[in-house]
C-alpha cells in the first residue's frame, strides 16, 4: 500500500517534470490549496474557531516554504488558502482581518524567495565550475600518464638502439650517457657523466662548422674517430642536434654515434680487392670481362679498350657482337645465349675486328660460369689472342696434308720400280740362269732379296703413313674382343705354323675405329709370334683392366724378351733389335702401334728381359669406352 503510494508519487513526479515550470508551480499551489482547505476544514470541524490560529500558522509555514523552494508563482494561491478560504468557510468572519500580518508575510516571502533564488544560482554556478575543474584535472592526468609512458619508452629505445647516445651541455660536459654508449665505449654512465665528450672520446671538431650546419639544417653529420675505454679506436658515424633554450640560446648538444668500424673495414677490403682484381686484369695479356645475370657485360679490362679502340663510355663496352666477324657472329650469339640460358660455361673461337691494326684476329673466347648468387657476377671470361696459333695451325695442317700426300705418292711410286727389278731379275734368273756360274747366280739372288726387302720397307712405310688415313668415324664403339678375333684370323697361318696358344679375356668396347684396334692387336701378336723361343710352345695372353680413367691392355708372351735398355727404341720407325738374318721384318709394326695409340690419346710401353718374355701394354682413355662391356673374367683359349 505504502509502496504503491510511493510509486504513484514518483509517477506524478515523473509526469510533473515534463511540464513547464510555471504550470508546475500553479499545479503545486493548487494542490496545496486543496490539501490546506481539506486540512483546515478538518481542523475547524474538530476544534471550531480555535483552530484558526493553527491553520493560519501552517499556511504561513507552507507559504514561506514555497517561497524558499522557488515556487513563487504559487505564493498567491497559498495566500488565498491561508487568508481567504478559512474565512469563507467560517461564517461571520471578516474578509480582511489582518493586513499587517499579510503585508509582513508578503515582504518576508519575497525576501525568502530572492534569497533562495540567489542561493540556487550560486550553487549552480559553483557546481558547473567544480564539474569543469574536475574534467580538466582528469584529462590532464591522462595526458601526463601518456607522456610519462612515451618518455619511458623513448628512454628504453635509446638504450636498445645499437648506437651511443649522449647529451652534453653548452660546455660539452656529458649529462646523459645511454646504455648503448656504455656498451660501445666501455665507460658506464657514472663514469662518463660530468666529463667533456671531446676529452673522454679524444676527438676534435670545429665547433664553427658544427654550428653553421646546425643553423642551416638542424643536424650536423660526420665521420669521426673515437677512442674507447680500452684505448682502441673506432670509426663512428656521428649525428649532432642542438638543444636550445626558450631564448634561442644553445644549451647543449645531442650526439648519436654509430660504430661503423667493421663496415668501413669491409668496404675498404672490397675496394682493395676490386683494385687488385683490376690491376691483375689489366696486367693480363688477355681481354678480361665479367658478365652478370642475363649475360650482360659488366666489366672489361684495359686490353679490351685498347683492342677495340672504344672509349670506356662507348657502346662497345656492353656488347662484343658488333666486333665479331659476320661469319662467326650468329654462331657466337647463339652459343652465348644458350650458355646464358643454361647458366653454363662458354667457349668459342671467334674473329674480332682489330681496332688498332684493322682486319680481324682470332680469339679464344672463354666464359667460366661463376654462379655466385651472393653477387651479380655470373661469368668470368677472357678473350685470348690465338691468331698466330691459328695461322700456324692452319699452315701446319696444310703442310701435314702435303707431306702425307707426298709420302704416299713417293712410297707408291717407289714400289713399282722395285717390284719391276724383283720381277725382271726373277725372270732373268729363270730364263737365262743356266748361262752363268753359281757365284753370279748367288749375286742375282742377293740382289733380288735386297730389292724385295726394300720393297717391303717401302710398303710398310706406306702403311705407316696410311695408318690413320682412314676416314674418321669414332661415333660408334668397337668391341675389342671382335677386333682381337679379327686380328687372330688375319694371323691364322702364322699362329698355326708356330703352334701358338692364345689366351684372352673378354675385352671392353672402345670408341675407336675397328681397323685401328685390329691393327694394334695384329702387330703386337705378330711381334710376339716372330720373337718366340724356338723350343717352347708360344703362349700369348691378351687382357685388359680398368685403371682410373683408362683401360690398360696387355699382350704378354713367353718369347725371347729384350734388353730393357731398348724399351724406348723399339717403338721407333725401322728400329730393330735383331739382324735380318735372324728375324725378318722392317721394324715398322710397333711404330704403327705407337702412332695409333697416340692418335687416341693413349700410351704404349713395353717391359721385358732377355730370355724372360715380353709384355706390351697400351692404355686408352676409357671415356672413349662403353661401360656395359665387362663380363666375368674368363680365359678363353682361342684359335680362329
Amino acid at each position, binding site marked *: 500500500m505504502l509502496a504503491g503510494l510511493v510509486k504513484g508519487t514518483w509517477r506524478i513526479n515523473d509526469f510533473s517534470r515534463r511540464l513547464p515550470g510555471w504550470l508546475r508551480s500553479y499545479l503545486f499551489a493548487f494542490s496545496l490549496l486543496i490539501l490546506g482547505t481539506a486540512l483546515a476544514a478538518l481542523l475547524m470541524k474538530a476544534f471550531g474557531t480555535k483552530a484558526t490560529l493553527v491553520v493560519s500558522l501552517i499556511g504561513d509555514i507552507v507559504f514561506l516554504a514555497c517561497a524558499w523552494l522557488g515556487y513563487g508563482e504559487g505564493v498567491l494561491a497559498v495566500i488565498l488558502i491561508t487568508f481567504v478560504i478559512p474565512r469563507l468557510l467560517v461564517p461571520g468572519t471578516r474578509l480582511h482581518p489582518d493586513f499587517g500580518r499579510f503585508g509582513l508575510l508578503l515582504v518576508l516571502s519575497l525576501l525568502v524567495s530572492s534569497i533562495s533564488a540567489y542561493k540556487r544560482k550560486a550553487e549552480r554556478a559553483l557546481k558547473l565550475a567544480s564539474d569543469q575543474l574536475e574534467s580538466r584535472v582528469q584529462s590532464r592526468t591522462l595526458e601526463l600518464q601518456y607522456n610519462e609512458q612515451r618518455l619511458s619508452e623513448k628512454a628504453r629505445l635509446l638504450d636498445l638502439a645499437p648506437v651511443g647516445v649522449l647529451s652534453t651541455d653548452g660546455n660539452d660536459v656529458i649529462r646523459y650517457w645511454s646504455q648503448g654508449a656504455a656498451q660501445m665505449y666501455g665507460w658506464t654512465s657514472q663514469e662518463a657523466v660530468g666529463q667533456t665528450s671531446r676529452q673522454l672520446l679524444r676527438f676534435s671538431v670545429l665547433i664553427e662548422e658544427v654550428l653553421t650546419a646546425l643553423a642551416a639544417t638542424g643536424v650536423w653529420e660526420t665521420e669521426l674517430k673515437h677512442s674507447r675505454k680500452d684505448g682502441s679506436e673506432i670509426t663512428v658515424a656521428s649525428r649532432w642536434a642542438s638543444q636550445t633554450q626558450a631564448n634561442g640560446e644553445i644549451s647543449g648538444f645531442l650526439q648519436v654515434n654509430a660504430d661503423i668500424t667493421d663496415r668501413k673495414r669491409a668496404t675498404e677490403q672490397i675496394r682493395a680487392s676490386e683494385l687488385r682484381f683490376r690491376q691483375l686484369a689489366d696486367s693480363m695479356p688477355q681481354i678480361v670481362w665479367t658478365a652478370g645475370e642475363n649475360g650482360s657485360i659488366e666489366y672489361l679490362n684495359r686490353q679490351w679498350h685498347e683492342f677495340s679502340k672504344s672509349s670506356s663510355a662507348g657502346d662497345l663496352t656492353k656488347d662484343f657482337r658488333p666486333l665479331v666477324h659476320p661469319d662467326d657472329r650468329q654462331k657466337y650469339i647463339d652459343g652465348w645465349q644458350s650458355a646464358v640460358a643454361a647458366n653454363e660455361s662458354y667457349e668459342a673461337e671467334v674473329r674480332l675486328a682489330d681496332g688498332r691494326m684493322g682486319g680481324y684476329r682470332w680469339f679464344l673466347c672463354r666464359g667460366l660460369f661463376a654462379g655466385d648468387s651472393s653477387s651479380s657476377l655470373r661469368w668470368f671470361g677472357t678473350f685470348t689472342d690465338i691468331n698466330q696459333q691459328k695461322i700456324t695451325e692452319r699452315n701446319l695442317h696444310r703442310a701435314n696434308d702435303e707431306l702425307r700426300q707426298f709420302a704416299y705418292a713417293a712410297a*707408291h711410286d717407289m*714400289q*713399282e720400280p*722395285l*717390284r*719391276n727389278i*724383283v*720381277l*725382271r731379275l*726373277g*725372270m732373268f734368273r*729363270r730364263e737365262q740362269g743356266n748361262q752363268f756360274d753359281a757365284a753370279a747366280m748367288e749375286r742375282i739372288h742377293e740382289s733380288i732379296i735386297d*730389292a*724385295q726387302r726394300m*720393297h*717391303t720397307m717401302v*710398303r710398310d712405310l*706406306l*702403311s705407316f703413313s*696410311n695408318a690413320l688415313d*682412314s676416314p674418321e668415324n669414332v661415333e660408334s664403339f668397337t668391341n675389342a674382343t671382335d677386333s682381337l678375333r679379327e686380328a687372330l684370323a688375319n694371323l691364322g697361318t702364322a699362329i698355326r705354323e708356330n703352334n701358338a696358344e692364345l689366351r684372352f679375356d673378354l675385352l671392353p668396347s672402345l670408341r675407336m675405329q675397328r*681397323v685401328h684396334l685390329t691393327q694394334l692387336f695384329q702387330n703386337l701378336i705378330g711381334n710376339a709370334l716372330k720373337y718366340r723361343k724356338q723350343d717352347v710352345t708360344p703362349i700369348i695372353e691378351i687382357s685388359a683392366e680398368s685403371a682410373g680413367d683408362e683401360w690398360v691392355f696387355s699382350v704378354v708372351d713367353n718369347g725371347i724378351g729384350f734388353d730393357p735398355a731398348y724399351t724406348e727404341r723399339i717403338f721407333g720407325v725401322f728400329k730393330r733389335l735383331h739382324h735380318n738374318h735372324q728375324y725378318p721384318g722392317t721394324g715398322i709394326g710397333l711404330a704403327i702401334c705407337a702412332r695409333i695409340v697416340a692418335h687416341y690419346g693413349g700410351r704404349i710401353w713395353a717391359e721385358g728381359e732377355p730370355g724372360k718374355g715380353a709384355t706390351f701394354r697400351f692404355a686408352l682413355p676409357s671415356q672413349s669406352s662403353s661401360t656395359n662391356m665387362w663380363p666375368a673374367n674368363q680365359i678363353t683359349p682361342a684359335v680362329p
Partner: protein
Amino acid sequence: MNLRSADDMTRVLIVEDNPVDAEMVERALQEEQSWTTETTVADDGEKAIELLLEHRGGRQQRPDLVILDLNLPKRDGAEVLQVIRTTDELRSLPVVVLSSSPMHVMKSKVHKANVEANCYLTKPADLDEFLALGKRLRYCYEKALGSKS
C-alpha cells in the same frame, strides 16, 4: 690388237700401264695350263674404256674378264670400273682389281666410286708368287661366272 674368238677361250683385258706387270699377268695366266686365255693389254684407262665401249655389242669381241690396275694414266681404274658397271651390256663383266696398294686402300678407292669389283688382289713382289696368281685369277673368274648364272 686382234681378238680371236673361240668358245672355249677366255678373252682377258689387262688394263695395266706397267709393262712388267702386264707381262707378268700374261705369264701367270699362261702358267694355268688348262685354262685357255687370250689377252689384250690397254695401257691407260681411256684406252680401256674406248675398247670396252667399242666392243660392248659384239659377243665375239667383248672381253670375258677384266684385270684392272687402279693407278692409271688419263682415267684411273675406278673410273673404268664405273663405266663397266653403268653400261648395260658390260654390267655383269667379271672384274679383278690387281693393284700394288694395300687391300683397304684399294677397296676404299673403288667404293668411293660407288662400284664393286668381283675380286681384289695385291701385286706380289716375288716372281713365284706373281706367277701363282693365275690360279687365283681363274678362281675369281669362275666364281664370278657361277654367281652370274
